[in-house]
């Protein structure tokens, strides 16, 4: 089967700093891969290139056969890439509902900027509220994001990814700062609603989450891929343990 995502020779440099160094990575359709590695190893930089926020210095990114490297973010989003953010990126001046709806504006025709029929607006409202209900957020529809707990904010970001109906999902530390119980809730939400039928890359330090969601794991170190394979095998490798947990733990 053709790869859903094929990254080849991808390099990204900031002046003298090499964030990504000739990275190769391929995802089969519907496959979820865990991306781990020490801080500064290039995980988030990869997401920034995949979403078009940074243009790579070399290499190619093919999404369902379309070259996306260097395209502007809106074009890449239109091809079906959506992400969450490590530090949460919600619009704090807009309601929960408008935060979710933000994912829908781009695919709507321009005339809807001026005129959305009441029926279309109701349909969209129903769709958004049932999406919020999946994450237990329906009662918060008209709240501001600041009224949400950390877990709810993450779930809203995940719901926003879902609202964009993407083909490729990029999750950047979806359980950062969460207790084990909260992490469980997030794992369930992602596994039940987000992953089915989509390819995904999940950046996460929590082994609990990565192994629960991703049968396959790739490890980055200093912008290079140092391991890639079945989760159990990769986590057991010496080089991975050294770069990830430090030499002392070997």
């Amino acid at each position, binding site marked *: 089967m053709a790869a859903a995502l094929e990254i080849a020779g991808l390099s990204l440099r900031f002046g003298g700093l090499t964030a990504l160094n000739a990275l190769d990575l391929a995802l089969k359709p519907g496959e979820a891969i865990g991306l781990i590695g020490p801080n500064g190893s290039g995980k988030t930089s990869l997401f920034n290139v995949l*979403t*078009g*926020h940074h243009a790579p210095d070399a290499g190619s990114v093919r999404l369902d056969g379309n070259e996306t490297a260097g395209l*502007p*973010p*809106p074009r890449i*989003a*239109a091809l079906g890439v*959506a*992400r969450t953010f490590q530090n949460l*990126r919600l*619009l*704090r*001046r*807009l*309601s929960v509902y*408008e935060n979710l*709806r*933000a*994912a829908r*504006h*781009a*695919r*709507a025709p321009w005339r*809807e*900027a*001026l*005129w*959305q029929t009441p029926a279309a*607006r109701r349909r969209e409202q129903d769709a958004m509220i049932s999406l919020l209900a999946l994450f237990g957020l329906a009662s918060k529809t*008209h709240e*501001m994001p600041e009224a949400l707990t950390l877990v709810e904010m993450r779930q809203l970001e995940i719901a926003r990814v879902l609202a*964009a109906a993407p083909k490729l999902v990029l999750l950047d530390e979806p359980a950062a700062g969460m207790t084990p119980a909260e992490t469980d809730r997030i794992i369930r939400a992602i596994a039940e609603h987000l992953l089915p039928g989509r390819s995904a890359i999940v950046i996460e330090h929590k082994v609990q989450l990565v192994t629960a969601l991703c049968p396959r794991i790739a490890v980055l170190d200093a912008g290079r891929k140092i391991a890639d394979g079945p989760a159990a095998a990769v986590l057991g490798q010496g080089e991975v343990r050294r770069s990830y947990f430090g030499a002392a733990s070997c």
Partner: protein
Amino acid sequence: MDGYTISVLSNIGLFAFLAISAWILLIAGEISFGQQAYFAIGAYSGGIATAVWQWPFAAGVVIAVALGAAVGALVAWPTMRLSGLHYAIATLAFAELTRASLNVFTYRRDIEGFATGPDGANGFGDIRWVYEAGIEPGAYLAIIAGCLGAVIGLVALMSYGRGMARLRIVGEDPILAAMQGLSVTRTKIAAASLAGGIAALGGALYAHLATYIEPAQFSVMTGVHALAYGLIGGLGTVLGPILGVLIDIGLLESLRVFAGYRMIVFGGLVVLVLIVRPRGLLDEPTMRRVQAWLRR
């Protein structure tokens, strides 16, 4: 209504166009010190259309709005690459360039034995449509109110549809907006075009009320006021900039309590509001509470 009330209300209405124009760009995340340029473009083009070309008033207004919107988009195309302070300075420079150009812009034709049209720094008089058509000040106030109502209605439609949400998303977080598939550049150009058209509409109405316009009327201070109205009144609703105009012209200028000290009081008020409520009196949380109350 007595003549004085009518003239104050007309003034409030005319400044409201300029204030809404600057407010739209504030929502889209840009600070413009140059919306007075579009007010001037509207005033001059509308005046030329009716006084020099002898077009009907409505056609003059339409051409003014079209020109304001077109120039707004054209200026936005290169300047939208800038942001924050750089954009503010670029808009200021464009407005001053417009004013300086009007100072040397002469376009006069013989209309019924009189040379009519803009005459550089000497200004542009005899924009007499209101007298020729026999429009009373009260009726002209109704025209202003009708046009302002149309602009508020347009913003209301955009709030109901996706337009205002798009502007607010791009204004708050352009990087996120782009990742949600929204073209930041196109959205901002559309906002600048809309803002240009609205300011030009106010300008065309102003020219026909004043009957005499000159480049000096469209100075930086006019633009700074327009910007301050939105910041005082609030960024949560289109009624915010109108509230700002009401506070400045309706209260400070008209009540004469602060006669002579108006600019000092107004300046102090701007500083105070920016410290206490950075996004104005009718800011987003306030509007959220109003909406929640309305839903009950």
